[in-house]
Every structure is written in C-alpha cells, then in structure tokens.
C-alpha cells in the first residue's frame, strides 16, 4: 500500500502540489486524472523518488521514502517499475538490451538465460522476435510496449504509468489498456496511472482520483466519478469547455487584461 500525506512541492513561486493526500490500495489500479500541467507527473515522480518534494510523506508499506538515504532508496526502487510517457527507451541499445538492462545491472539472471527471459517479458506485452531492433525502428505503440516490458523485467510489485495511452491511436491505446489490466491480474501489482484519457481511466481503474490545484479533490470508483456531483470533476470527466475550471481562468484573463 502507498500512503501519501501532506505532500507539497513548489517550483519557484508556482505551487504544484499543495498538501496532497492519496491512498493507493495494494493490488489495485489507482488512476489520477487532471488537466495538463496540474502536476500529475510531479506526483508520480515524487512517489518514485525522482523529485524530492518540499514537505510531506510517502509511505510504501509503512516506510517513508522521503526519510531514506540513497542506499535505501535504491533498494526500494527495485520494487518499482515505471512506464514513461515517451517510453524513454535507451536509444543507443537494441530492444533486447533495453529490456535486459535491470536484469544485467542487478545480476538477477545469469547472462546465458538473458535472451530467454527477455523473450518471455516481450511476449507478455505481445511482442516477439524484435530483440535485435533499435528503438528508432519501432512505432509509438511498440515503443510503449517495450518500455512496459523493460519496466516489468525485474518483477516489481508497484508499477507507475505516465500517460500510457497518450499519442497512440484508439486501437493501440486499448491494447495498452488491456495489458495494464492483465498485468494487474497476472502479477498482482499495485499501480498508479496518470492520464487525461477518460476512456482509458474508466476501463483500467479500480479507483479514480482527480487532481486539481495541487490537491486530490475527489476519489471514487469509476462509476462514482462518472456520476459525480462535484462540478469541477464533472466538467473534466465530461470534457466540457465551459464550467468551473475554465470559468476561473476566464475570470483570471479578464482580471489581467483590465
């Protein structure tokens, strides 16, 4: 279980996360939704220890990762896997070496078995016989799947997905959705997904949380979010151009131009 309490982060004067609270139950997929630039990426990068927040705590099974030294942090990071928005494959290495990276680095698998293990991980994301290809030769959807294979290679029990379906065509997006669901079912991983793709959110989520102005303003099951009474959440999930979120910025625009 991941428990995030009073998490705050500001870049200069811009407050991105403001006393944020979120509980991520074990073995479930929690989807964090929110507009572009609302700090969704900052949130999961804090959870992984890539960004150090200004205040708060992030407890992984009771251990606060923000109080850890570098050694402990490296150990706890082995429990994490992360799929990046642009897949972030190492473009100087072929697909096989990308997927095998953590296995080699942490010496989890003897060198002779690496290819087999990598092939098995790739087959879990529906790919085969592409170990010798370079990342530049892959399509966007394939890159994401290779990124996913790399993230699950060291068998983490927590997976973080940064906009897994952004930039993919609807069919490939659904392939990724199915993969996320099947990984949760077969590996039993706890996951946090950030997205603004509502179709994907409804499909993969056990729990949806809406991030707005640095706070989680509502948490609920997908059907609860769909029929929410909170006007801000309703505007976002229904994708309307007019509502409390945009009204506020219009007011702001009027205020500035006065």
């Amino acid at each position, binding site marked *: 279980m991941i428990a995030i309490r009073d998490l705050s982060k500001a870049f200069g004067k811009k407050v991105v996360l403001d006393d944020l609270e979120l509980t991520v139950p074990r073995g479930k997929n929690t989807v964090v939704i929110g507009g572009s630039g609302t700090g969704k990426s900052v949130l999961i*990068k804090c959870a*992984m*220890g*890539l960004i150090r927040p200004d205040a708060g705590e992030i407890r992984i099974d009771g251990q606060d990762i923000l109080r850890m030294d570098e050694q402990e942090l*490296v150990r706890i*990071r*082995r429990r*994490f*896997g*992360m799929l*990046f*928005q*642009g897949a*972030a*494959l*190492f*473009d*100087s290495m072929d697909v096989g070496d990308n997927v095998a*990276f*953590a296995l080699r*680095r*942490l*010496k989890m698998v003897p060198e002779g078995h690496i290819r087999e293990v990598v092939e098995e991980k790739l087959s879990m994301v529906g790919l085969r016989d592409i170990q010798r290809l370079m990342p530049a030769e892959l399509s966007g959807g394939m890159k994401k799947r290779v990124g996913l294979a*790399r*993230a699950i290679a*060291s068998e983490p029990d927590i997976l973080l997905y940064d906009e897994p379906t952004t930039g993919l065509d609807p069919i490939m997006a659904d392939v990724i959705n199915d993969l996320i669901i099947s990984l949760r079912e077969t590996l039993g991983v706890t996951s946090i997904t950030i997205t603004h793709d509502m179709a994907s959110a409804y499909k993969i989520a056990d729990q949806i949380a809406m991030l707005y102005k640095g706070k989680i303003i509502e948490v609920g099951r997908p059907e609860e979010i769909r029929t929410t009474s909170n006007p801000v959440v309703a505007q976002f999930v229904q994708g309307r151009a007019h509502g409390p979120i945009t009204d506020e910025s219009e007011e702001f625009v009027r205020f500035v131009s006065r």
Partner: protein
Amino acid sequence: MTDSTAKKNGALRLAELLGERVHAMVLDLGAIFTLFLQVVSSAVRPPSEFRNIVKQMEEVGIRSMPVVLVTATFTGMVLALQSYSGFQRFGATSFVGSVVALSITRELGPVFAGLMVSGRVGASMAAELGTMKVTEQIDALITLATNPVKYLVVPRVVAATIVLPILVVFADLLGIIGGYFVSVYLMGANPYVYMSKTYQYLEFKDIYTGLIKASVFGMLIALISCHHGFVAQGGAEGVGRATTRAVVASSMMVLISDYFMTSFMF
C-alpha cells in the same frame, strides 16, 4: 531628469545582469564540483563500469586521434616557420628545433589537444546526455536502480582522464616531426643540428608536465560537458544550448587551468 533616471536604471540593470551572470557561474562551478565528488564516491562502488570505460576510451581517444594529429602537425609546422623567420634576424636559427620541441611538449600539444577534444568530445557528451535528459532516459535509469552519475559520468570522466595524455604523446611526436620537416626541407636547416638541438634542451619534465596537464584537461572537459548535459531542459533547443555551453565552458576551462597548472609546476 528623465534622462538621469534612465541612465541610473541602465547602470543598475548592467550591474544586475553582471551579478546574475556571476551568480550563475558560481552555481555552475559548485554543481561541477559536486558532480566531481559524486564521480569519485560512486566510481569505487560495484558494479564495475569497465566495459563502458573501454567504450568511452574508444570514443574519446581513437575517434579524436585524426583531428588532434592534424592540429598538432600543422602547429609544429607553423611554429617552425615563424620561429625560423624570427630567429633569422639575430642569427639564432639553430635554436628553432629547441623552441619547437619545448613549445610543443610543454604547452601547445596539451592545449591544442584539449581544445580539439573540448569541441569534439565535449559537444557530443553534452548533446548525448542532454538528449537523454529531455527524453526522460536519465529518469528511466534511476527507475531501473541505476545511478546515472555512475553509469554515464564515471566512464566518460575516467576515459577522458586516461586517454588525453595518450593523445598528447602522439600530438607531441607529430608536432616535432612537422617542425622538423618544415625546417629541414623548406628552410634548409641542417637535419643533424636540428635533431641534436631538439634533444639537447628537452627534459623529461617538459614532457610529463604536459601529460599531467592533458589528464586534468580531459577530466575537466568530461565533467563540464556531462554537467551541462545533465541540466539540459526544454527539448531540442535546450540540448543545443547545453552543447554550446559545454564547448565554450570547457574550452575556457582548458586555457584557464593551463595557466594555473603551468605557474605551479614550473
């Protein structure tokens, strides 16, 4: 009235701008020193980066060899040409060999190799690491339980520190040969006298101090370029900016550190 306030504002802004620049420079120097400490502390920890170091030595050393050698040869040649016509005025042309040998080994070999490597290797390190930074590949390394300083910076710094002196050995040799050819075949110097003058005043110290300098240049170039790559942000434009900064900063650092090392060592 308005004129004087405008002037004051102008002067103030200039002071402000200067202050900002100096502040940024001090921050950079601090960050580079911190990076150096991280490199030292992570280099000794397992796993060993031996394979990556060898790969970087090839990149920094073998691929830079042609450009360094051409530079050194022509430097030796032009040095012989210039000192020959200068020394002719007071009839000291027999010392051309000594001047060429001393200037090349003590100063020009290491410095020109350093500058060429700054341009070639510094740019490629900053661009590669900068691209990795803006495409989140460096974050990806961290998520795969790998320390990016250890995996990316240590091999580059170690390789550059080892390889630059080796490059300079060849640069020294070719610089002296270049000077010899110009003096003997173009200026008609006596080959025997030229060679004996080359040896006569050249001490072992001249060569090894040049190599120590080269080693420090290599380390500085790699550290500075990796630092600028690591802090790159904002897509292709940011990578371009990081690359420019890396080349300018490491070239300047080569020249500045050269002065101080020379004043300490001789």
